[in-house]
């Protein structure tokens, strides 16, 4: 293919699209890129994409800081001790939920041995069971959010129901209440 001596190859033109869009090239280079784009539809399509990317970047929102952050800074400026807000991040929740599972399994079984003759502890065990269910429900929610494939029905079938049944048997009480799925 015959090309004028100053014609740009595509590879070089593609390297210059962003500075061309910003008119950030010397005049001679601007002309060479423009001529190439007039003759090359593939590179012209790339220029459209480059222009759209720039347009979309400029249209992205600039979110503002929540007022409570400024309030915390203001209080700290007055000399108050202002801790960072306590936040539960996913890995910690996974650890907490796993700990709750272990506590439920071990605690439920161990309690079962001792509790048959200790009537006043029944309410404590029932309370522990409810709390463990809440932890399990949260575990399901967090693992979903983290993209782990542990579904509610799996948690319920494999963990919540067997453990609840074990605790109920230990207590000598039937507990058929459905576990809560959401907090």
């Amino acid at each position, binding site marked *: 293919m015959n090309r004028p001596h100053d014609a740009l190859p595509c590879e070089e033109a593609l390297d210059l699209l962003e500075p061309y869009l910003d008119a950030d090239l010397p005049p001679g280079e601007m002309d060479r890129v423009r001529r190439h784009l007039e003759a090359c539809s593939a590179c012209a399509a790339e220029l459209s*994409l480059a222009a759209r990317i720039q347009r979309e970047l*400029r249209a992205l929102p600039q979110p503002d800081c929540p007022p409570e952050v400024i309030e915390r800074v203001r209080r700290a400026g007055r000399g108050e001790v202002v801790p960072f807000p306590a936040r539960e991040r996913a890995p910690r929740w996974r650890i907490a939920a796993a700990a709750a599972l272990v506590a439920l399994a071990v605690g439920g079984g161990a309690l079962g041995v001792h509790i048959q003759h200790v009537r006043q502890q029944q309410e404590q065990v029932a309370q522990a069971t409810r709390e463990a269910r809440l932890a399990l429900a949260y575990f399901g929610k967090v693992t979903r959010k983290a993209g782990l494939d542990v579904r509610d029905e799996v948690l319920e079938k494999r963990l919540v129901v067997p453990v609840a049944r074990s605790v109920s048997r230990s207590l000598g009480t039937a507990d058929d209440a459905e576990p809560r799925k959401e907090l």
Partner: protein
Amino acid sequence: MLTAFEDTAQRYRRRVYSFARYLLSSREEAEDVTQEVLLRLWRHRQGVDEERLGSWLLRVTRNACYDLLRKRRSESAAGLAPGFDDEAEEEVASAEPDPQSRAEATDFRRRLLVALAEIGEPYKSVVILREVQGLPHREIGETLGIPEVTVRVHLHRGRKRLRELMKEDVPHE
């Protein structure tokens, strides 16, 4: 004294917070960084040149973000999905009236944010500061400690990298 500090905090809070938000892709961590940066401003306000306050704040913000990112990488591989959090997804939703155009435009922005998270430094900071925040090249250079001409080179390379990533993502576009 506190009033002058509060004025400054109010003036720069959006810039600091949104820079952190795009660098970290996390609302909560961006809030923590903003708090930390503004507290640092409170402590060091006497030593900061008023004319360079904006670039000083952005430099401190960037350093704080990268400390957090390093910590995040060392703590766990199960971090956030690159690009954005749930709230950012709502924020980038397009306002196109036609549902099909709206869906396409929102998808484009979502992919753009994911690509932005992947282009690496210093390109990411330069692209955010120039294209998203609209800062002049000079101020970006002061923030990053590089000459203006280097800012322009990084900006063009960063956007070119974005274009390549967007093409990889949708090969038939």
